[in-house]
């Protein structure tokens, strides 16, 4: 039964994160939403590691990597600002055909 609550929580976090990534216009907020998705995965990893500590170790690895990932993300945002004097993601459509 405990597992059920954990799953509900993590699904909620993932959905909130996805919603944020898809709808928000501010890149920092998008980075925060990505953090939410990662942390939903962490919750699952920790919750299901009852037999041994592999899951918890893996979760701390994810935290470390996500910290690095935020660094890269912020660097992208910073360069975006330098390039466009604006950080609205609706203006960044260079991937278009």
């Amino acid at each position, binding site marked *: 039964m405990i597992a059920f609550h954990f799953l509900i929580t993590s699904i909620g976090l993932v959905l909130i994160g996805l919603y944020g990534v898809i709808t928000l216009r501010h890149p920092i907020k998008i980075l925060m939403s990505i953090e939410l998705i990662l942390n939903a995965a962490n919750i699952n990893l920790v919750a299901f590691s009852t037999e041994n500590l592999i899951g918890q170790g893996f979760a701390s690895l994810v935290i470390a990597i996500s910290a690095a990932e935020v660094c890269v993300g912020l660097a992208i945002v910073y360069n975006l600002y330098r390039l466009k004097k604006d950080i609205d993601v*609706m203006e960044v*459509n260079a991937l*278009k*055909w």
Partner: protein
Amino acid sequence: MVMEYAWLIPVPLFIVFGINILLNKRLKNRTSGYLATGAVAFSFILSTLIFISSLLTGSKFHGSVTWFQLGEHVIKAGYLIDPVSSLMLLVVSLVSFLVFIYSLEFMEDDRSKPRFFGELALFSGSMTGLVLADNFLLMFIFWELVGLCSYLLIGFWMEKSEAASGSKKAFLITRIGDILMLSGIMLMFTQIGSFGFEETFNSFGQLSGDLQTITLLLLFGGAVGKSAQLPLQVWIPDAMVGPTPVSALIHAATMVKAGVYLLARISPLLSSSPLVTSIIAYFGILTALFGAYSALTQKDIKEILAYSTISHIGFMVFAIGVMGYSASLFHLFNHSAFKALLFLAAGVVITETGKHDITKMGNFWKRGKLVPIATLIGCLSLAGIPPLGGWFSKEMILTATMQGGNYILVSLFILASFLSPIYIFRWYSLIFSTNRRKKVGDKSSGYLMVLPIVALATIAGLAGLFNSSFNEWMPWSLHHGSHAILAIGSTLVVLTGFTLAILIYHLKLIDINRIKENTLFEILHKFSFNALYIDDSYTKLGFKAFSFSILASKFDDKYVDGVINAFGAFGRKVSSKSKSFDDIGIDGVVNGVADSIKFSSSLARKIQTGLVRDYSLWILIGTITILIILKISGG
């Protein structure tokens, strides 16, 4: 040796031509005239020196350089000085010099003086070049240049339509002769392999007899065109529309003498072919008769002189035909002097009276004695009255004819020389005689126009003194036969003609109108006035050819073009059908494919916004869809 520098003679004239034509209006009118006169004075001095040194030493000079190479034939270009060419050089440059001086005043008021003097300089320069040339090809080039210049100068007043058509006529008719001459030269080149005079003379004997005859006749054809012999004489009277100094140059120095010079040049070849020489003799004497006969009744002051030139060139050609080469050249020299003199005098008369019709002139003797007396000397020389140059040269020609022993030619020659004094003293009396009370204009000529006339009169008057030394100096001297009776007889004939002319036209003791009432004389008069209708019949023939060509063009338009047009229309119909198939069928398929791709891609491109969030939404949707499919199918 002054002869080595002979090539310099035409050079300043060509330079002056270049300057005058290039600078044209930027040059002051006076400057252009002085430049040209200076250049021709240089040529005259050099020619005189060459003439004197040739006269004293009797030597020849031949200088040449390699011109170009044609296969194995090396073509050389150079200049040849011998008695013949040095005499021609003197005649050409002397007459040119005097005519240039005369033109300084005659063309005073003309706006295009630089063009006039430039073309005049080119004219004299080309003629001296023609005389200097040591081979047929170079000679032909200058020959053509002379023709071009005569075209330019006859049509100098090109705003007048008769000047334009006269120059065209002169150019086209002399062209016939030029083509014959060129084919003669080429024929000779194919057989001998050289254009040079000396090489040609050396190896001409190796050709077959027929080939020799054809070549010589072709070359004679060139002379016929240039020297206005029958039947190509029709351009000369029409050429009279040019400025008078130009007529003087054409008749006395630069144009019509070229043909005689060519014949004198090829004289070593002529002596081997009696057929050709007799053809030349008959052509010459018939031309002489024709010219003298036509000159009898003309009214234009210059046209009489033109027909007289035809007649006298006929004498020269005739003299070549009877092998009297030195006689021919002596007559050429005399003719240059008196004909230039008469033309320049005619120019004075025209400027002072403003008229061309001699029947409306008279009493010109009143206007100062210098010009009338000088003209009288010229007329006496032309008529062949002793002891002037014309008499000596005519006697020389007669002697040469007697040596040939053909009495038909002798009698024709005497007949032609009987007509000369009649027409020329008709001309002289109608213009100058005080018995005709006509008003004369009040314009008078300056010394620049009178001096050349006086100089030419001196030359014409004194030329007779040199006849025997001239004969000895020439390479083919005549043996003076003892035809004293004939000489006296022919002189008497000439004097009879002279007396007749004086009686009719000056003293009016014989009424010319009474003679004209006779039908025979009327017919003769008509034929003479229209120059035997030769020109008219050429025109008619030309029109016949023209109407035939109109017929041919109609046939061409209707039938030949009709067939072609029908083919064309058929082709157009077929191609228009195939075009519409192409438009609708093939292009439709191609365009349809392209259009459908364009339409579908316009739908697909809407998905691509370039925004990361949209892509991630699509990834999410895709993932969920795949998961749902897996759930349903995998269970």
